[in-house]
């Protein structure tokens, strides 16, 4: 691994900074975010907000029009076992999506949400 590669990888959410290993994807889940509606999206970086407001849904069709959703991916490091959750909030619009920025939680803050 070159120096440049190392620097670039540090910014990737699926990269364990301690073990310097690529993490494995350990789960994917779609959540509804009922407190966020179209035109009223505000980015939150506080994990408590997501712990209180994310509701797991089985499929995209379960999300009503105008309500935001979150596609969550969890990564696990095979070396140290650390878990990282990446949230991708988006507004589902028919068969398309209006994407907002990704939010990364590197210290297992959202592990409780995965156990819902």
């Amino acid at each position: 691994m070159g120096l440049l590669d190392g620097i670039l990888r540090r910014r990737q959410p699926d990269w364990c900074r301690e073990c310097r290993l690529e993490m494995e994807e350990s789960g994917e889940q779609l959540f509804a975010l009922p407190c966020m509606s179209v035109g009223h999206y505000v980015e939150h970086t506080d994990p408590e907000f997501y712990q209180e407001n994310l509701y797991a849904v089985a499929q995209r069709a379960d999300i009503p029009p105008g309500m935001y959703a979150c596609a969550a991916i969890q990564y696990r490091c095979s070396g140290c076992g650390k878990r990282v959750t990446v949230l991708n909030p988006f507004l589902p619009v028919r068969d398309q999506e209006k994407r907002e920025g990704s939010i990364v939680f590197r210290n297992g803050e959202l592990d409780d949400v995965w156990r819902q």
Partner: protein
Amino acid sequence: MKTDHVKKVNYVYLLAYILVPAALAALGLWIGYTFYHDGGVGAVIFDMCVPILAILWWVFGGRIIYSIAKKRMLKKLDEAEIDRRQIFYSDGCVVSMDIRQAKVAMLFFWNPFALYVLPAGRVTRAWTDDGAGGVGILRGTSRVSFLFEVDGVKIRVNTFVSNQRWKLNDDKVLEGISKADLWVQVLEQARQQGAEV
């Protein structure tokens, strides 16, 4: 608050809005020409200020009246204990929906003195118009709106308007479509509730 047949345009107001400033400007020009033919302060007032005021009225007057009417609408809805948390402000119309009481309230830009509060059961249908047009790479839209019919009168409420054509997957357009779909769902829900009452 009115409950009778919906009128989107008050033609007396519309004609007065256009013609009264025009008549005042013409009168000002006539007075300026007749009585202040040699110039002076009177000529400036009647030949310049009055026509400028007329133009300012055409540009801003309608918006000011509409803005005052919107504030009055909120006050009246509060007085009538109608839930107005579900409200949409558009350029030509304000729609408020009280799902619990199954009532829809409407205010129109060109009829700002009439606030309509109707049972949602009178809404016969609601749908979204994404305004898509063009072919190939030119396919896009410049207007997204939701429409509904009350007593056979079609009411269009714009959720996205532009003087350019935007691609259908643009964020602004998607947000407009989402707002329109949400309101169609709200109207349908209230309509069904109104039909049950």
